[in-house]
C-alpha cells in the first residue's frame, strides 16, 4: 500500500476531508493496536479519539520526506494507550487482568472485522509459533524497542531480528496472498 502523501499534506494544511479519509484508512488498525493494550472497548474508543486529535494537532511535526506515516501514528497510538494503562483510574479498575496478546483477542472475538479477512488471519495466527506470537506482540502491538524485546525474550538481538523477519514473511504470505 502506497502511502497517501497528498492526503497527509492536505491534512497538515487543515483539510478536514483529507483527515476524514486518513481516519477511514487507519482508524481500525490503530483501534486494534490500542484495544490489544487497554483490553476494554470503551477505553479503546476514548484513546482512539485522543490519538486522532493528537494526529490533527501535531500533524506538522511529521514530514512525508522522512519516515513512514503509519509508523508515526502507530507510535502515537501505542504511547497514548500505554499512558492510559499507567493512569491510576485504569489500574484501579483492572488489577487482576491477565495479560493478553493479539492472538487471544482474535480467538475470543465473536464479531470479527468484516473489512479484512479476519477469519483467514485468525486461522493462520492460531498456527503461528508461540515464539512468533511473542515477538510480533511485543514489537508491533506493545511497542517494545528491539533492545527491550530481546531482553524480555532473552534472545540475542540478531536472533530476534531474524525470527521477527521470518515470522512477518510468513504472515505476509497469508495476509496478502
Amino acid at each position, binding site marked *: 500500500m502506497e502511502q497517501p502523501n497528498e492526503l497527509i499534506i492536505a491534512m497538515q494544511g487543515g483539510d478536514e476531508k483529507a483527515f476524514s479519509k486518513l481516519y477511514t484508512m487507519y482508524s481500525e*488498525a490503530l483501534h486494534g493496536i490500542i484495544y490489544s493494550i487497554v483490553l476494554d472497548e470503551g477505553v479503546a474508543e476514548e484513546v482512539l479519539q485522543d490519538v486522532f486529535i493528537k494526529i490533527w494537532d501535531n500533524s506538522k511535526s511529521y514530514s512525508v520526506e522522512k519516515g513512514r506515516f503509519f509508523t508515526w501514528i502507530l507510535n502515537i497510538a501505542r504511547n497514548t494507550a500505554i499512558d492510559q494503562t499507567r493512569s491510576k483510574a485504569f489500574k484501579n479498575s483492572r488489577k487482576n487482568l491477565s495479560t493478553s496478546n493479539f492472538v487471544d483477542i482474535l480467538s475470543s472475538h465473536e464479531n470479527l472485522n468484516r473489512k479484512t479477512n479476519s477469519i483467514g488471519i485468525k486461522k493462520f495466527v492460531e498456527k503461528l509459533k508461540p515464539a512468533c506470537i511473542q515477538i510480533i506482540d511485543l514489537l508491533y502491538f506493545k511497542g517494545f524497542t528491539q533492545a527491550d524485546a530481546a531482553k524480555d525474550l532473552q534472545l540475542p538481538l540478531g536472533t530476534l531480528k531474524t525470527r521477527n523477519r521470518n515470522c512477518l514473511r510468513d504472515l505476509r504470505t497469508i495476509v496478502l496472498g
Partner: protein
Amino acid sequence: MNIEEIRTSGQLELYVTGSLPAEEVRELEQALAQYPELREDIEQLEATLIQLAEAATPPLPALVWTYILNAIRNVQKLDTQATTRTNWAAITGWAAAILCIAGIFWMLKETNELREDIRYTTTQNVILEEQVQTTETQLANTNELLDILRSKEYAAFTLPGNQAVAPQAYAKVYFNKKDQIAYIDARGLPPAPQDKVYQVWSLIMDPLTPRSVGLLEPSKEIEGGVYRFDNIPDPEAFGITLEPAGGSESPTLQQLYTLGTVAP
C-alpha cells in the same frame, strides 16, 4: 550494505514497527534513499501489519469520528474567537436583572394608579348612592302623592288660563273637602319672573271674597311642581295671580293667570 543485505537484516521489519533506535533509523533512511525499490518491501510489510491489527479490532462506532470532528472544530473556534467571545450568560443575567427592576417600578406605578382609581370610584359610589337615595325619596314622595290624589277623598278640577293675561296657562287642583286640604299642580303656569311670585286665592262668589291660600314657594312644594295647602275653608273657586315677592293682601286682578270653580 547492499540491497539484499538490507532485506535479510530484519532492519526493515523493525523500522516499520518503530522498534529501531533513532541512530539506526537514520542509517536505514539513507539506505532507502539509495535503493528506492526497498519502498515496496516496506509498503508490503506495512500492509500486512495493518491487516493484522485490523483483524484484532472490536467494532468501531461511527460516533468516535463525530467526537473527533467536534473536538478539532471546537479547538479551532477557541483559537480564533477566545478573545472576542461575548459572555452571553453575563449579559443575559444583567438584562434579566434590569428587566426585573423595571418591572417592579412599573408594577408600583400600576398599583398607585389602581389606588387612585379605587379612591375615585369610591367617591363616585358615594355620589351615586346619594343620588339613588334622593331618587328613592322622590319616588316615594311621588307615589305617596299619587296615592293621595287618586283617593276618592280628593276631587280634581282644572283652573283654565285667563284669556286676557295667559290663555295657554292652566293649573290643576286636587281638593279634599272634608279635611280642607288642597294640592295645586302648577306645571301649566309659565315660570314666574324674578321678584315675582304666584299667589293662590280661594274665592267665595257671592259676594266676591278673595282669601289668600298661600304662595307657590319651595316651602310648600311637595314634589315636581305640586304644592300642598292646608286649612282652606269651603271655597267656591280658586284663582292664581302673579304678585310681587312676599305676596299681597288682595289679588292683583290684572295679573290673574288662572281661575276656576270647584266642582260641585
